[in-house]
């Protein structure tokens, strides 16, 4: 079996652009998804059931339906409704963010609830308000515990951004499919794409490992 490196070289400018776009989509998804996830997680933790209800259903919907379906709905339905035309990049960012937020909300909730009740009691007994206790005592500890599951979620998000190819967002997988279509070859485009994703995910877990070690307190 021959392996045509010349194909990869020919497409390398597009692959680089695609990689940058994948990084951009993932970062946007991570950032928006995290902020939204914190908000939804706190929403779900409200003691009043009726107020928590919309957040519960948000999580149920976005966790319970395929991201693939969500991307199609948002690309062909939601985005045209909002801006009057389709836009692959906008649709991908929205879909990735909304989807990740559902998972991240649960990670936040689990992280916060895993902190011993005594921590909140100690903080409150010193005169701190609920918000101060959350900010200075609970969240910093919860955040440390959330790093591994958040890292997992971010890695999933990078990989799932490849689904954006289906709505012609020119990221890595899109160019892989273009290459495959032009040359009728399998190994070169898809292996190249796989290796690029692998480099991205390994880099991310490396960064998260450093962060986790930095936050150790012994």
């Amino acid at each position, binding site marked *: 079996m021959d392996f045509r490196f010349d194909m990869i070289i020919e497409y390398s400018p597009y692959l680089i652009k695609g990689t940058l776009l994948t990084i951009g989509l993932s970062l946007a998804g991570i950032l928006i998804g995290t902020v939204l996830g914190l908000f939804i997680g706190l929403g779900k933790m409200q003691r009043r059931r009726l107020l928590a209800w919309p957040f519960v259903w948000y999580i149920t919907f976005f966790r319970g339906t395929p991201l693939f379906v969500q991307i199609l709905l948002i690309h062909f339905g939601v985005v045209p409704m909002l801006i009057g035309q389709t836009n692959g990049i906008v649709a991908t960012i929205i879909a990735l963010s909304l989807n990740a937020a559902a998972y991240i909300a649960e990670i936040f909730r689990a992280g916060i609830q895993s902190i*011993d009740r*005594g*921590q909140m*009691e*100690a*903080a*409150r*007994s*010193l*005169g*701190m*308000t609920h918000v*101060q206790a959350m900010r*200075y*005592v609970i969240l*910093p*500890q919860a955040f*440390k515990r959330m790093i591994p599951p958040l890292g997992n979620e971010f890695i999933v998000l990078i990989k799932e951004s490849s689904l954006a190819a289906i709505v012609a967002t020119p990221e890595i997988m899109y160019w892989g499919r273009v290459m495959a279509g032009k040359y009728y070859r399998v190994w070169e485009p898809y292996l190249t794409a796989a290796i690029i994703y692998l480099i991205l995910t390994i880099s991310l877990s490396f960064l998260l490992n450093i962060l986790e070690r930095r936050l150790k*307190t*012994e």
Partner: protein
Amino acid sequence: MIKVENLQKTFGSHKVLNGINVVVQPQEVVVVIGPSGSGKSTFLRCINLLETITDGHVLIEEVDITDKSSNINKVREEVGMVFQHFNLFPHKTVMENITLAPLKVRGIPEQQARSKGMELLKKVGLEDKAEAYPDSLSGGQKQRVAIARALAMEPKIMLFDEPTSALDPEMVGEVLEVIKQLAREGMTMVVVTHEMGFAREVGDRVIFMDGGLIIEENKPREIFENPQHERTKAFLSKVL
């Protein structure tokens, strides 16, 4: 200083406190004893509203904390609490544990908070541990830091919830010594404990609780040497 009137507390259908009446005078050390499940910890936790109060009133320096309009955070600034399981903040150093509330709640300058913190650490004999993290300390050291943390807010009242129950026996003494010193300095305190020797030595008054009620209260010597009620006698015969 503390006035508890007909305090009642239920968890679901279970009645934990059945009408407690206590008055604590300034500089008084009140020790609460009783079998587990007698409601003594719940009673203590109601004094700074860590438990919601089902019925009755708790007044801290004339402020009724059961009144929805009173600011509980302000009251808590004046009421320090020490927990059975220390509840130190594990992500902060010993010094940060002590200065956090003075900085964020009282808003005093960092320099002042640290020097006050150092002073308190000296008082509990841990000035060399200022930059250590709680995980590296022994149980007795943790509890002494917890006491220093509560004192950093310069409270007028200190509550102790079984402060030595989670400690190895050889560390009980060092913690009790710090509490005794506070008593000598005239701190108003309510102490829930199983340390009968301590109750006898330090308490101005001992309260015996059982079944969510105060069964008997008296001077330590009276209650230990001449208990009036059967339940007090039965309890003391088991623990002394």
